[in-house]
């Protein structure tokens, strides 16, 4: 599949944006500026970007506790994201949600989710809605390898399969659910095989190769838009950092981590783009600078924004 040059650069830019954004988040978390649990996506950027590059602004996604990458890939605003992480009133959720609940319903982002496996049923519902309203919108549902054992995952796939709902189930198999290796939490190597239980297509791809993800998602999105139903895509990847910031990571063999670091999706894609002549050192530097400037701006915005006032605590519980 030939992907347009512009698209390639866009994807590269998104991936780099996620990487830099999260590196900055890690710093501010360490500095005590960001409270709560922060689960970073570094190392998995190709999954969100390869998938969302196939989506339209009016398509939907459901995200997870590890959601910053999905949000950025779907077009989320860095300033409002960073402000939310800082717990500020100008954040996406007015400071009420934080990292695990950032959402932008207008952009079709139906929320990060603090419940492992919370997303698949919701994704089925959003897809049912698209089908019901007669649009050709689709839903990308992100979830981890650990979530693929949770009952709600299976219930969501079953519902989506029987009703031919336009959902792309995207498993981010980073081979761990917190400390538990996939080898110990499930009996199968390819989560993609679980698609057979619902008679939908299931495919496992190199999740550190953004083009491979893009292509698999492309076909799944095509199917979904055409009314042919759901698909399951398993993206094999690895998180570079701990489960959450502060994780002592006693459970991963250093050799394993090293091997995966060599497959880092970002330098890999960069090298490929250079090889293809799509990207030059100069251009890469430009992109990097643009991103850094934006993130600086986002951090400044977050830092300068006010905290919500205690009186705002009771707002937004109910729609009047």
């Amino acid at each position, binding site marked *: 599949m030939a992907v347009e040059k512009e698209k390639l650069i866009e994807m590269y830019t998104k991936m780099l944006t996620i990487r830099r954004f999260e590196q900055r988040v890690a710093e501010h978390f360490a500095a005590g500026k960001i409270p709560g649990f922060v689960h970073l996506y570094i190392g998995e950027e190709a999954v969100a970007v390869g998938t969302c590059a196939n989506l339209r602004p009016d398509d939907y996604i459901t995200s997870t506790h590890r959601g910053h990458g999905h949000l950025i890939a779907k077009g989320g605003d860095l300033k409002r994201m960073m402000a939310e992480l800082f717990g500020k009133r100008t954040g996406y959720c007015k400071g009420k*949600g934080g990292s695990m609940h950032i959402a932008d*319903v207008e952009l079709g982002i139906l*929320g990060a989710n603090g419940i492992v496996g919370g997303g698949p*049923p*919701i994704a089925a519902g959003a897809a*049912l809605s698209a089908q*019901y309203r007669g649009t050709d919108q689709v839903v990308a549902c992100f979830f981890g390898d650990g979530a693929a054992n949770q009952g709600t995952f299976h219930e969501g796939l*079953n519902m989506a399969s029987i009703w031919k709902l336009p959902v792309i189930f995207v498993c981010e198999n980073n081979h761990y659910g917190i400390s538990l290796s996939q080898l110990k939490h499930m009996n199968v190597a390819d989560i993609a095989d679980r698609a057979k239980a619902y008679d939908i297509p299931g495919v496992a791809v190199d999740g550190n190769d953004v083009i491979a993800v893009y292509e698999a998602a492309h076909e799944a999105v095509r199917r979904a838009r055409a009314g042919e139903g759901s698909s399951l895509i398993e993206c094999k990847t690895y998180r570079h950092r701990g489960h959450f910031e502060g994780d002592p990571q006693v459970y991963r063999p250093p050799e394993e981590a090293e091997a995966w670091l060599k497959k880092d999706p970002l330098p890999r894609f960069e090298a490929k783009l250079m090889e293809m002549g799509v990207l030059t050192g100069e251009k890469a530097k430009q992109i990097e600078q643009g991103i850094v400037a934006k993130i600086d701006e986002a951090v400044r915005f977050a830092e300068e924004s006010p905290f919500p006032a205690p009186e705002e605590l009771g707002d937004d519980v*109910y729609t009047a």
Partner: protein
Amino acid sequence: MRKLTYAAALNEALKQEMRRDPAIYVAGEDVAKYGGIFGVTAGLLEEFGEKRVKDTPITESAIIGSAVGAAATGLRPVVELMFIDFIGVALDQLFNQAAKMKYMFGGKAKLPIVVRTTCGAGMGAAAQHSQSLEAWFMHIPGLKVVMPSTPYDAKGLLVTAIREDNPVFFIENKMLYGLEGGVPEEPYTIPFGQADVKREGSDVTIVATAAMVHKALAAAAELAKEGISAEVLDPRTLTPLDEESIINSVKKTHRLVIVQEAVKRAGAGAEIAAVVAERALEQLDAPIARVAAPFTPVPFSPALEKAFIPTEERIIAAVKEVVG
């Protein structure tokens, strides 16, 4: 006024609202072809077709979860949880997702969902098909909780629930489905948070919900013969709770008996008692009394089930105790 059963009143509300708004759909186990295990959704499939009336697999998390996704993207789902007892396999989607989403998103979501379900003992359905669990749902910010006791209230409250832009947990009592009462034909709404005086009285306030309203009324009629005038108040919605009406009634009668079918410990009646003890303690001339189920699962045998469900006799005894 024309008479309808409680089930038929609910059925009419569903039909009329679905005619009014094409964004409303109904989904749940056996709601379409079967028309609902208790007949509440009968005829919907025939009138509205498979798109709007959907039989679902037996996957309650997906039933409620899909309603969340659909509601957040523009539809108005009315889904059925066949028995309230089944909430244990689906609670997350209700309490962590539906009820909290708007808040977690900083206000930027609208979740017009109705989850209809049925509660209550009395038909020998035993421990996993007979519970009254309304108290749990009162403890969930973001949710509204409805518990109608009459056909009239059932229709009006369901219409209001469907028009609400917040998730509503709508609890029907299975022993009331056959109860007849006057129900206007045209659609009408009953505002949430407005208790209804089912019988006026001056000596004691009896706050009762769902099937217990009728036992309280029977008890009140009996007490009247002995010269005790009981006021029977039905909150109708537990969230919002009409604290004012309860307190005003207590200000008049100075005595309070609370009747619920659920087990007493940590039930809805505890909250009502606590509100009065906080806000109107000085008005009370006697201890508050709660009539409720004992702290046991619901037993199967009719011999035991009868002893489990609060009776008219127990209500009368409680009233006499507080009236002194």
